[in-house]
């Protein structure tokens, strides 16, 4: 690893070509490992507190598959378009990056919109973060994910501005790639929220 060849990674995509870019990407994978550990504690809390609704509203009464599926497909598609942006980056097509990243952020914003609406709906029906242990765990888990999505939209937006200013360089391309890893990771977390919160919650009700 500690070799002195700074610019010898000729066959690699632009984002890996500088030693810094390559190490930053590796470092971000290690960060994602820590994020997995972080979310695992929230999942553990949620699973342990399942059913502790303290006589208040239950998830079976409030969860609605239609909205959740819409959210799922919005985020899943945004992960796909984000991948296409990286594909365009590797073809050196700056315009393609803007188009696909722009679409990614729009889909991400759509996801957030649905989630905020969903949360408001729950609060309206009497399930707030303070209602019961179950709803505390639910809002913290889903909310932490939602905050990550909101942060990702801002971050990727800023990186797009920098792209417009500096063009595709080993530095900017590594940043785009790293933010794409972050975005895909949010979809991975959502898959598990979809499974362990929504699907499980509803299976248990008629199982």
């Amino acid at each position, binding site marked *: 690893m500690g070799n002195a060849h700074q610019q010898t990674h000729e066959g690699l995509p632009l984002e890996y070509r500088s030693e810094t870019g390559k190490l930053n990407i590796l470092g971000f994978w290690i960060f994602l490992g820590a994020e997995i550990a972080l979310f695992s*504690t929230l999942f553990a809390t949620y699973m342990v507190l399942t059913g502790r609704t303290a006589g208040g509203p239950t998830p079976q009464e409030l969860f609605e598959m239609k909205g959740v599926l819409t959210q799922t497909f919005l985020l*899943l598609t945004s992960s*796909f378009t984000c991948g296409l942006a990286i594909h365009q980056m590797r073809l050196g097509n700056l315009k393609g990056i803007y188009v696909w990243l722009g679409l990614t952020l729009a889909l991400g914003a759509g996801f957030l919109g649905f989630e905020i609406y969903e949360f408001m709906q729950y609060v309206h029906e009497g399930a707030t973060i303070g209602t019961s242990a179950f709803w505390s765990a639910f809002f913290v888990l889903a909310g932490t994910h939602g905050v990550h999505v909101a942060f990702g939209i801002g971050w990727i937006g800023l990186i797009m501005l920098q792209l417009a200013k500096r063009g595709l360089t080993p530095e900017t391309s590594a940043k785009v790639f790293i933010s794409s890893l972050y975005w895909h990771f949010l979809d991975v977390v959502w898959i598990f929220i979809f499974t362990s919160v929504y699907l499980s919650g509803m299976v248990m009700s008629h199982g």
Partner: protein
Amino acid sequence: MAKPQAAVQNKRTFPFKHFVGYLFSIVLTLLAVWVAFESELPAKVIMNVIYIFAFLQAALQLLMFMHITETSNGRIQTGTILFAVFIAITVAAGSVWVMSAGHS
């Protein structure tokens, strides 16, 4: 160590991997919904199946979209994530087990 890896460079213009990843993610999501609501399997079986689908979908993201195995760092990256997944399963499944064992 840092020898060029031709396999990494994406000369093909059609993003084949991404389409396969997207298609399978959609199929797995819909299958999970079907198993959960329509299959009439016992709840325990349903839970196992939908979790298997979730892990498969996560693997698709990592391999098809995130290119986790790329470059000479691929092994370290994969090892890091596998270790994190081990920690996550230990924390989540361990907590559930500890809190449910011994009392109902």
